[in-house]
């Protein structure tokens, strides 16, 4: 088992250990005493609305942003202790991967492989093939690449480093559905083989599908963290969209129930807040009353419900109080 072998070799209990990291940009607090622990071989999701501090935190892990307070350890070593070797085995990107536009894709990888040294250059062809950029695409100047192609090139650049820690900031941005599907599969596979993955995403489904644990940030603070099953357990009831043969009567049946909250939806049908078991009971009671359920879908998963509940304050503040003169994007 690759994961077991990795743990035995390193003897580490955490691949990433963040303690009390704080970062200010002028008067804006981008990170406020953030704690985060990610174990070896774990896939960890980083969630939060725009400006929550996700990219700042990922940038700090790469040493791009120097925290004003707190400590950050990768594989047990701080940056001060490890020096330039701190990022050995660490790969990925923050924000959209950026390359030299006047060089072609292959040449850009050659530049990065040159920085990596050793035999990284010998991996270029393989990496280009793996991300679907082999052939003519590799010979095109990067200035002509689409966002999705740059993301793929970013993944190829990460592969050159043979990572044991992969840090990815919204890697699916600009990718077509096939690319997104393949990316998810790739990350799952990497995790199975012992690679620790930290993934920032707005895509809740992506986080739920591939992550073992997650941290939710809001306004620079950690508002929830833990394994996904624990977060789901702490989450509010999921939200369902429902259509029946008689919505008025269905709402009346829900009214006296304490554990089922139902309301009409502006777009037609109903919105129901209820746990899975309670929802099952409600649907059965509708059937018993002769009401047909014509449509039922999960509108908001427990994790999504938790996310919206915990980040509502920041989202509302951002909507109401744009700060003149503040950076367009709080997180770099």
């Amino acid at each position: 088992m690759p994961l077991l072998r990795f743990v035995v070799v390193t003897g580490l209990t955490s691949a990433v250990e963040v303690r009390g990291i704080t970062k200010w940009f002028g008067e804006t607090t981008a990170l406020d005493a953030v704690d985060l622990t990610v174990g070896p071989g774990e896939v960890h999701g980083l969630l939060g609305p725009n400006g929550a501090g996700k990219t700042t935190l990922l940038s700090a892990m790469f040493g791009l942003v120097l925290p004003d307070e707190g400590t950050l350890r990768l594989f047990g070593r701080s940056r001060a202790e490890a020096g330039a070797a701190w990022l050995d085995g660490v790969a990925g990107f923050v924000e959209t991967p950026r390359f030299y536009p006047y060089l072609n894709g292959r040449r850009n990888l050659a530049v990065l492989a040159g920085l990596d040294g050793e035999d990284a250059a010998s991996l270029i062809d393989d990496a280009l093939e793996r991300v679907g950029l082999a052939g003519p695409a590799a010979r095109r100047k990067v200035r002509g690449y689409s966002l999705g192609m740059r993301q793929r090139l970013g993944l190829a650049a990460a592969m050159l480093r043979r990572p044991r820690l992969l840090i990815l900031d919204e890697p699916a941005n600009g990718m077509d559905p096939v690319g997104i599907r393949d990316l998810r599969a790739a990350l799952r596979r990497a995790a199975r083989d012992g690679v620790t993955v930290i993934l920032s995403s707005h895509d809740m489904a992506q986080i739920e599908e591939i992550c073992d644990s997650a941290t939710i940030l809001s306004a620079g603070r950690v508002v929830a963290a833990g394994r996904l099953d624990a977060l789901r357990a702490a989450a509010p009831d999921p939200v369902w969209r429902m259509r029946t043969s008689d919505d008025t009567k269905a709402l009346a049946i829900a009214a006296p129930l304490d554990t089922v909250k139902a309301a009409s939806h502006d777009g037609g049908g109903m919105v129901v807040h209820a746990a899975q078991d309670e929802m099952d009971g409600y649907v059965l009671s509708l059937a018993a009353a002769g009401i047909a359920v014509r449509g039922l879908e999960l509108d908001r998963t427990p994790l999504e419900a938790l996310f919206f509940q915990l980040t509502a304050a920041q989202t509302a503040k951002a909507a109401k109080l744009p700060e003149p003169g503040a950076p367009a994007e709080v997180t770099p």
Partner: protein
Amino acid sequence: MSLAADRWPAYAEREAAVRKPAGGTLVVWRVELMKLAGKILVRGMTVLAVIGPFMVVEFLNLQSATPGDTPFGQWVHTSGFAIPMTILGFGAQWILPAITAVVAGDIYSADDHFGTWKTILTRSRSRGELFAGKFLAAVTFAVFMLLLLTVTDLIAGLLPGREPVVGLGGQLVPAGHATWLVLASYLSDLPPLLGFTALAVLLSVASRNSVVGIGGTVAIAVLFQIVTLANMPEWGQQALLSTPFMAWHGFWTAPAFYGPFLWGLVTCGAWFAVCGLAAWLVFRRRTIGAAS
């Protein structure tokens, strides 16, 4: 296009021990030279440095008059040695700063412009190695261009003939000695050239803007040239980075004097050290990213 997901693990399996960076600064230097070789402007300047002197010689041959207001200008039709010295006397104070500024004034700010700092700073190279490697690449380009111009100017000048040339003291300088003096004169411009390289680096790092890095360096060079014409005290003239560009005048008198060259070494060394150190201090703790 399809991401071949099932082939990722090969990398993880090969990852065993922490890899050690090898020769950090030199690695970055090599990579920067690779990038420079891919720039059309750099290639164009190199080509121009090769053919430019021959075009100047052709142009001078078509003229009946001589550029008499430049040292050696009046001898361009009588001695091939006068041609490289005329080019040096005419253009050194602003052409050489402009040449080095094209690379040194852009080599850091280009990464700000393209947003690539975060790409290269995540590759196990320290900021110190990146800074030093880029600085070394800028210096390498400056030295390369000066040596290239030295050779091409000399060859272009000597094609018409190798007659002795009249020195600045009125003495006749034989061909063999004149060759060495031409070489020494060009190489004496290396210290101020490196001083301007460090200045361009500082502007590039501090402004994060290549227009400032390149244009600012050229503007300062022109400003220094104008200030040189003003009635400044001697210490003021000696403190200017452009003054050592003229230190070679002393090589061509009889007897030769080397005081301005030696004083120029001190001036250029100070500019080089102060600008280089300031650039590093600015670069060292910079935050990389949009919020910066």
